[in-house]
């Protein structure tokens, strides 16, 4: 929108598990400052696409570029190498060996479809631990508290982040004792603590009621401007998606079937067919909930 510089570019990504093609030749771009959504029926390969970007899976084919640097490419031997990966290299030299931690260090943070907080930790510690990756201390200086300045700064930053996101009042509570909506918010807070420039949200509104969803919409907008983020998200709530997205990509059976602004997507016959089923065929029951939401639009 505002700037055309793309921050994330997926190029011909194909991800195959045995005979199943989960993602089929997917190419997409996220520009700086944009909120881009990836939608599609269940099992369309959205989360797999996320996992390719974050280095969980090595793609069967294709490459991912972040800020103009190639961060992921098809690398059949990667899995073997990962097991014996040596020192922590922030810059990929020579060949790419992306692991999720390296990708996060580059500035891509993510949340999970099913909340994955560190369950035995307090709200404060959950965010504080996420600051670990920006450390400059080694294990000796950390043990003997020679890094107390950094530690203090991390704690201050964490407190500030929690204040901005409205979680400061519950900072000493165990994260599992929070209500569902706040746990989601905490997961986003934790992702923000890693100082990302691109935030990947995997179904942030899953299981939320309409009021919570509306709050979340404002929340995502706010953090986008406050933290100068680009947001790339997977979502099923069509209200949220149509309201917030600058652009939308639609996946079906791993393949991209449409892309464009929310208005274009809403009127695209292919998308309607994918969600509602073809007129002649009987509809697939698994698509039903989304069909209803589409009608609600």
């Amino acid at each position, binding site marked *: 929108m505002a700037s055309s510089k793309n921050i994330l570019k997926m190029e011909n990504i194909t991800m195959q598990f045995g005979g199943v093609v989960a993602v089929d030749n997917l190419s997409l771009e996220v520009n700086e400052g944009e909120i881009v959504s990836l939608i599609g029926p269940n099992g369309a390969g959205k989360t797999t696409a996320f996992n390719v970007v974050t280095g969980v899976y090595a793609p069967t084919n294709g490459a991912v570029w972040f800020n103009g640097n190639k961060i992921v490419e098809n690398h059949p031997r990667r899995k073997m190498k990962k097991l014996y990966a040596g*020192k922590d290299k922030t810059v990929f030299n020579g060949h790419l060996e992306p692991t999720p931690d390296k990708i*996060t260090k580059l500035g891509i943070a993510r949340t999970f479809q099913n909340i*994955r907080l*560190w*369950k035995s930790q307090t709200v404060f510690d959950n965010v504080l*631990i996420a600051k670990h990756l920006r450390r400059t201390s080694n294990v000796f200086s950390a043990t003997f508290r020679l890094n107390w300045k950094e530690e203090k700064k991390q704690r201050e930053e964490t407190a500030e982040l929690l204040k901005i996101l409205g979680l400061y009042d519950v900072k000493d509570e165990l994260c599992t004792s929070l209500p569902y909506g706040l746990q989601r918010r905490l997961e986003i807070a934790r992702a923000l603590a890693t100082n990302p420039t691109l935030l990947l949200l995997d179904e942030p509104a899953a299981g939320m009621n309409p009021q919570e969803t509306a709050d979340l919409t404002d929340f995502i907008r706010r953090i986008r401007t406050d933290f100068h983020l680009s947001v790339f998200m997977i979502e099923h709530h069509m209200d949220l998606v149509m309201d917030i997205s600058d652009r939308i990509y639609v996946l079906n059976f791993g393949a991209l079937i449409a892309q464009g602004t929310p208005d274009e997507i809403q009127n695209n016959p292919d998308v309607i067919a994918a969600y509602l089923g073809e007129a002649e065929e009987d509809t697939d029951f698994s698509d039903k909930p989304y069909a209803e939401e589409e009608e609600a639009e």
Partner: protein
Amino acid sequence: MENTNKKRDLFIGFGLLALLFIVLVILEQTVRPTSILFTVLKKGAIYALVAVSMNLLNGFTGLFSLGQAGFMLLGAYTYAIFTIPVEARAQVYQYFDGGAIQFTLPVIVAMILAGLVAAFFAYLIGLPVLHLKSDYLAIATLGFAEILRAIFQWDKLGVITNGSNLLRKYPVFKTSTFYFAISGICIALIVLLINSTYGRAFKAIRDDEVAAEAMGINLAHHKRMAFTISSFFAGISGALLAMFQTTIQASQFKSAMTYEILLIVVIGGIGSVSGSCISSFLFIACSEWWLRFLDNANLNFTSIQILRPGFRKVVFSVVIMCIVLFYQKGIMGDKEFSIKGIAGFFKKLKSKRNK
């Protein structure tokens, strides 16, 4: 307010530690040195250290490893080999022409070296095995410990390890304050590590590996670090054990030893340093001292026919089963021993009574 409270707690904690040491010194002056009390205290201190080091791995990093006896063996042997006086070597290595090593290191240097050797081997074995999950890691490390035990009894290495014969005549410390000081320092270091940013990362790995990796924590690096550090302290406790026993032999570092340590960790509470310390003293006291009377059919006042040598082990097992049944999370759970906690406990008791 919060800060002053913290400072006060720290102050009281140090005060209690100082008190403990004073009591220990007084005990050493008054009780006769052959008393079983000192055996329990020394062995308890050693086991506390190794239990805490195992807890660092099992309780705080979530790596289920059973190699602790192997790393203790490495530490014990390293200490013994490098500190036997040169003039005593001919006698100790009588079947191997006095052995290959003909120099001695100062005690403290040898102890640190014991830890480093254990850590080095842990690093090497960690490269291939640390990507294994839970039970498989336990099997691999257990196997490693058993292999070490076999290798150290191998005749061909006899010039260094003295084969399957005893190592002895190395310097030992008789005072239990020494054991307390060394293991106290080591446990303090582990606690400092656990509360540092790295310790928090370990806990994150324990709670959710996938999330930890997604938040930028390098799993391989951190797991290897926890494994190496844990083995370092296991090595030092091995050196302490060598001193305590005055002689060592590879055949005593059986997997049963690892299970004993694991039992201490579980009884104390997985994820609680103070739990491990408390339970190691209780464990050693029970197995060495308090249940001794069960081995003897003729008590002072009466004689019970069912009591016979070995009977204490039966009772001991029952006691352990009861503890595991009634305290499923161990004595301390994953909480730490704290002044605040005790104060809270008494307050609760009081309010209950008032009701």
